């Protein structure tokens, strides 16, 4: 029996109401948690329980952001960091997928390179920071390379493993149809592993933020990472906290963007 809206059983009505109440409660608790935190922070600062100069406070952060918005210095910083991050994860995902495809293509190369990839993956990439700066100079190039260093190897390993786990029966089918390697890749391996590639994209957003901010800490003259370092050097904690807050918002927004992109990609590329 189907349940139309006009003839809901009493049990169903009760269940739906309970669900609605629960959802409302969860939303309320979420908002209350954030508000409580901000309010507690603000009050503690005003009442002098914490030193607002060191710990900052929501109102001071808001004021700092407002000030930077008005004098026009905020937007360029935000843009720089977001652009670097976007470039980092797009490049990391594309390059990583390309390398994974080449490794899938040549099992010989894959076997030769596998131990090196595993070691590179285990290496803490921050250690490469100074090396990168010496090689390419303290500029945007170094920041991009930092972001790549962090996301590339993981992408290669993840995507390669999923390429290799392609259904053997489907592989046999395509081979029996006379398909060559390129054809198998185009018709089976790539479309079949699109979810893995998109997953790598999602992971790379996070990793690229880490790489870009790390890079900005080390070299840059612009961007949110720079703002944070600069703030801490001149002991303006409002600036530092504003930087952290902006970063949180930007990262969350970008992640939502990727989730949207995933839906579009899945629908159209296949």
């Amino acid at each position, binding site marked *: 029996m189907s349940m139309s809206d006009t003839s809901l059983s009493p049990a169903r009505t009760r269940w739906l109401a309970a669900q609605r109440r629960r959802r409302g409660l969860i939303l309320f608790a979420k908002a209350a948690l954030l508000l409580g935190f901000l309010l507690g922070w603000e009050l503690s600062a005003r009442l002098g329980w914490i030193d607002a100069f060191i710990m900052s406070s929501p109102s001071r952060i808001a004021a700092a952001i407002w000030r930077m918005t008005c004098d026009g210095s905020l937007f360029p910083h935000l843009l720089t960091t977001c652009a670097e991050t976007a470039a980092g994860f797009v490049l990391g995902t594309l390059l990583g997928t390309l390398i994974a495809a080449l490794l899938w293509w040549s099992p010989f190369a894959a076997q030769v390179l596998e131990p090196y990839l595993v070691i590179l993956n285990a290496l803490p990439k921050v250690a490469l920071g100074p090396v990168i700066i010496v090689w390419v100079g303290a500029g945007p190039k170094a920041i991009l390379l930092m972001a790549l260093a962090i996301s590339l190897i993981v992408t290669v390993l993840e995507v390669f493993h999923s390429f290799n786990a392609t259904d053997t029966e*489907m592989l*046999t*089918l*395509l081979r*029996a*149809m*006379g398909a060559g390697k390129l*054809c198998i890749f185009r018709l*089976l391996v790539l*479309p079949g592993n699109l979810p893995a590639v998109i997953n790598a994209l999602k992971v790379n957003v996070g990793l690229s933020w880490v790489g870009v901010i790390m890079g900005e800490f080390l070299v840059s003259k612009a961007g949110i990472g720079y703002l944070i370092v600069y703030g801490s050097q001149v002991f303006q904690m409002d600036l530092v906290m504003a930087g952290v807050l902006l970063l949180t918002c930007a990262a969350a927004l970008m992640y939502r963007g990727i989730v949207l992109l995933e839906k579009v990609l899945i629908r159209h590329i296949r």
Partner: protein
Amino acid sequence: MQKIVNVLGISLRYQSDDGEIPAIADLSMDVAEGEFLSIVGPSGCGKSTLLSVLAGLLQPDAGQVLLRGDPITGPHPAVGLMPQRDALLPWRTVRSNVLLGQDVSHSRSREAEAYADALLSAYGLSGFAQKYPSELSGGMRQRAALIRTLATQPALLLLDEPFSSLDYQTRITVAADIHRIIKQQQKTAVMVTHDLSEALSVSDRILVLSRRPASVKRIFVSDFGPDVPPLARREHPAFAAAFEQLWRELDVHV
């Protein structure tokens, strides 16, 4: 009768680090044009290996396989493989799955599409052409997989346990269904199965293989008459006796 396939004394050993596994030893057989041949044998005896050789996916170490007189050296357009699980690509619609062979050989033409559409509608899938495989029942998926194989217009169909992923009842009707389509299309079929009653109900001949390494142990010729459909054969008075005889030949309990 004209032979479409001649297998002449082939042997094949799988090589690995742990040693070699002889899968086929000095096996000879042939397949007549238009016949439905089943291959049965103990599990792991080399049935799928033999089918892979016929499909041109594996080369025997010794011996030769002739397709209409020419040696098979690789996958051939006149041979179509239907895998065990339907292997329909989940991100392609049924129609686009059926046309996969054309996409592989870059031969997707208006005629090819028309032929595929004709097959889809002849076998009751035209309403599902734009659906995805996950929206189809097991039997319909199997039929779609068969149509995909037929769409490349092969002369010889190779089926490796095509119904083993279906439940028992569906299996009997789907086997009858697939058999009807193959006969209607006047194709030659070689089917691996481990279900003896299935083999008896659809085949003109049944090849019984020995234990690994596979060689031909016996050949059963069906005496139900050529035009008796699978479901009627199962009802046939001689069916039980034939089953008994085949069962003994397989020698599974030793």
